[in-house]
Every structure is written in structure tokens, then in C-alpha cells.
């Protein structure tokens, strides 16, 4: 546990010292700003205020950018260590590999959550400038559920990016593999859920698509199966990453 904290501190420091983190942060915040402007247009054109949290958390600007943004955060996790040889220096200390993988996972997840912080500013603006007393914003339940969605979807995406990074010594390869996997699953989910005629396909799409999950959660609909789906998938992918790191010693 002590070693986990030590590694996590180091991970956070590295994360916030890397220039790429700030480039990613800049672009993500520009996108969030764009998303908020778009949301205001929708509201001005008569969309009900109830949809505000939905657009805030699940707006297409953000949903479509996550499969790009997350691999950019996670690409360096193991690829960089492997390239520089510091993985050797790490693995020859008395640490346990799960602690190493988890510290990297939580480090990246923390940075990802920092990326979402402006959401509270936007929510505050909406609350402050709600046009009349009848309109209730924020809906705390929906805001809380949306945040939960951010964490759940983020965990799975970060773990997938981490797995890709553990497979290669090249950060670019790690990033592109991450884009590929995340975009494929994301788009497959969206297309299945919204564009197929086949009802079974639609059902499957709704079941697996993170876009749908995010939309539901941001409306305040919390399904236990969604929570379990994300937690178990994240755990499974992290387990795979642990095995990958262990297998490199053979």
C-alpha cells in the first residue's frame, strides 16, 4: 500500500509535468467550451432545461473526443518506461506489479477527472442564470449521476489505453492502438443503437454503447447493470495489463 502511494505520487507528478498533458487539456477545454456554447443555443431555441445536464455530460463534442483524448493521456504510461528502460529499474525493486499498474491507472484517471473540472463552472453558470424560478437547475441527482458516468466511462477508457501502452515501447503505436479500439467500440455501439433496423441489434447497441450509457446517466437514470458492466470490464482489462507486464519477463 505504501509503495502504491509512492508510485501514485510519482505518476501524478510526471503526468502534470508532461507538456502533452497540457496540450490535451487545452484542446479538451476548448471542446468543452464549444459544447457549452452549443448547449446554450439549444436552450435558447427552446430545448427544455431538463436536457441541460444531458448535453453537458453527453454532448457529441465531448463524447466523440474522449476516444482521442484518453489514449493521448495513457500512451506514455508503460510505453515510455519501456523505451527509456526505467521499467527495468522499477521491476527490480521490491514492488508488486498490480500496485504498479493500479498506480498508473489511478494517476491517469485522476488527470482525466481534472479535465472534467470546468463542468462545474458551466453548471454554476447555468444555475446562476436560469431564466425563471420555475426552472430548476441544477438537478442534483442528474448532476451526480452524470459525474458517476464520467468516472465509469473514463475508467474503462483509461484502462484500455493503459493496456495498449503496456503492449508496446512506442508511444505513437500505443496512442493509435488506443484510438482504434476505443473508436471502433464507440462507433459500433452508436451505430448499433441508433441506426440499425434489427431490434436485437438495437438492444445490444443500447446495452454496450457508452454514448447511450452517458446519455442515460446524465438524465439521472442509474442502472446497476451499467455500473457493473464498467467496473467489471475495467477490472478485466487491468488484469490483462498486469499479465502483459508479467509476461514480458519470460
Amino acid at each position, binding site marked *: 500500500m505504501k509503495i502504491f502511494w509512492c508510485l501514485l505520487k510519482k505518476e501524478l507528478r510526471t503526468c502534470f509535468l508532461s507538456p502533452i498533458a497540457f496540450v490535451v487539456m487545452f484542446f479538451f477545454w476548448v471542446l468543452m467550451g464549444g459544447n457549452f456554447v452549443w448547449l446554450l443555443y439549444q436552450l435558447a431555441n427552446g430545448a427544455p432545461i431538463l436536457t441541460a445536464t444531458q448535453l453537458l455530460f453527453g454532448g457529441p463534442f465531448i463524447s466523440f473526443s474522449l476516444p482521442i483524448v484518453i489514449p493521448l493521456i495513457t500512451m506514455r504510461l508503460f510505453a515510455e518506461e519501456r523505451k527509456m528502460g526505467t521499467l527495468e529499474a522499477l521491476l*527490480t525493486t521490491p514492488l508488486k506489479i498490480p500496485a504498479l499498474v493500479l498506480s498508473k491507472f489511478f494517476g491517469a484517471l485522476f488527470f482525466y477527472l481534472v479535465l472534467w473540472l470546468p463542468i462545474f463552472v458551466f453548471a454554476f453558470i447555468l444555475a446562476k442564470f436560469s431564466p425563471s424560478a420555475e426552472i430548476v437547475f441544477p438537478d442534483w441527482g442528474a448532476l451526480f449521476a452524470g459525474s458517476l458516468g464520467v468516472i465509469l466511462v473514463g475508467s474503462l477508457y483509461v484502462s484500455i489505453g493503459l493496456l495498449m501502452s503496456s503492449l508496446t515501447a512506442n508511444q505513437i503505436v500505443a496512442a493509435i492502438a488506443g484510438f482504434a479500439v476505443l473508436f471502433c467500440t464507440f462507433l459500433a455501439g452508436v451505430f448499433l443503437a441508433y441506426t440499425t433496423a434489427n431490434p436485437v441489434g438495437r438492444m445490444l447497441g443500447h446495452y454496450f454503447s457508452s454514448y447511450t450509457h452517458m446519455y442515460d446517466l446524465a438524465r439521472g437514470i442509474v442502472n446497476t447493470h451499467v455500473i457493473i458492466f464498467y467496473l467489471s470490464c475495467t477490472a478485466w482489462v487491468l488484469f490483462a495489463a498486469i499479465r502483459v507486464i508479467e509476461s514480458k519477463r519470460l
Partner: protein
Amino acid sequence: MIKVSNVTKKYPARLAVNDISFEVARGEIVGFLGPNGAGKTTTMRMLTGYLEANAGEIEVAGFNLYTHSEEVRRRIGYLPESCPLYPEMRVDEYLWFRAELKGVSLATRRAKVNDVKERCGLTDVGKRIIGQLSKGYRQRVGLADALVHDPELLILDEPTVGLDPYQIRQVRELIRQLAEQHTILLSTHILPEVEAVCERILIITDGKIVASDTSENLHRMLHSTVLLEMEIQAEKEEALAALKTIQGIHIRECNTLVGGWLWIEMDAESPTLRVELFNLAVAKGWSLRALTEKEYSLEDTFVEITQRAKEQSL
């Protein structure tokens, strides 16, 4: 301290280490020699638990590496070949992080970090960013990192690569000091270094240990002859032909020096053959300005041993 028995390591394309066995006793300084690609680094990586052997047993400080890997790693200070460091960190931060990672308690951490900084000559660069340090300083940071948790066994993979001669001497001195409390296994290409520091030498070629002894014993084992060096002023062909007539002399090398001098190095079956060489020079009327018995260099021994091993395996 280290007990390696019948260890084999296969990479997908080749056999890196082939059924090696050796032991290192507590308090020894052992030099690990071998040509590039002989399996030195692979062996060291297996000892530190970074790579897993395909077959065989490794025991370090009484712990089996497979069942008690963590205990073993706790007792090893390892300096990897490329000396990997985090370039974005400061020296102090890095050593602090490594000490914490290796389980040095908070109470003693500051003292330990300061101690290794002093021993490795890093006191003045504690606040500098590692990425901006010269190769020599980085190497010292790596060495300080290997020492910071006061390990029983030090495994140093080419500790003096990239250092200037002055720093090399410092590192050697440091290694000698460390030998009082630690067991050391170090690999290097630089042969005089091994002779200067190590008590025992392990030579590995093509994944096999071909020799393990003190450097004097290795020489003795290989050479029943002594090495003689002579400088004379004479015609080259004539001199060589005349020298060949002496029984028990084998010429290794002959170079022409300035002023018509010849420098000749030869294997002689006995050091007393010098008398006959002197008599020959007198008889031929050559001027003689040097005639000495020399020590075989470790380089000669090393080349010979590795070559012999190659021939045997063919």
C-alpha cells in the same frame, strides 16, 4: 550470496544463456567478463528478477528467486546497463522516490539519501534536473540509486561506461570501499578495470561460463610460458631468422621503431632464456636496450579463453 545452478535462458530466436552455474560468496567482488552478446546482461537481469530463467535455480542471500522474489529484490542494488533515470525529475526527488520505493523508512530516508549523495559526489547537483546532467553525473545518480537502500548485494552492469578517466578512478575507489560491506558482481568491457578491482573473474562466452578464477590463476592456467619483450637494433628479417633458432622461443609480434630499433614480443618456455637472447645479441653484434619479462595482460587471457571456447564448441 549468489548461487546459480544450471540456468538457461532462451529468447525466441536464440539461446542467450546456456546451462550456467556459478557461485559468489559473501563479501566477494566478482568481475563478469564477456564479449558483446555473450549473455552478461541477460544473466544479471535474471539475478535481479527482471527476467525469468527457462530452467535452473537461482538463490540470492539464501532466498530462492522464484518463491521469494520480493525478498531477493529487497537485498539487491542494481545498476542496469543503460542507467535508466527519469529525465524530468531532480536528483533529490529521484533518490527520494527510489528510496521510498525500496522501503527505506521515512525516519532514515533523509540520512540515507544524503549519505549516498555524498559517497557518489552528488551533493552539489541535488537540485539539478536529471535530464540536464552529463553522462558521468547520470551514471553516479544510477549508482547512488543502487546503494540507497543499503543492499547486501550490488549488481552493476557496466558501471563506468561514459565516465572520464578521473571519474572512473573515483568509481573504482568507491567500489573498493563498498566491498567492505557488500558483495559485488560487476560486468564491464574494460579489462584493466576488472584487474584493478575484482578478486575473481567470471568469463562468459556464447552463454556459457568458460572460466572462473583470480586473474593470476587464469594466466597461469593458460600459459605455461612467460612473456618476454626485447628491443634491439637490427635488420628485421635477419633478427627474426636468428631468433627462431633458439629453442623454446615463439615470436608473437615484431614492430619497427624509430632509429632502426626493433620491438619484439615473444612467448618463452622459461624466463632463463633471456640469457640466450642476450648471448645471441652479443654474437650478432646487435645493440640491445631492453630485455624484460612481462605479465600477460588480462586482455590476452580474455581473448585466448574466449577463442578457445569458440574453437571447442565448433
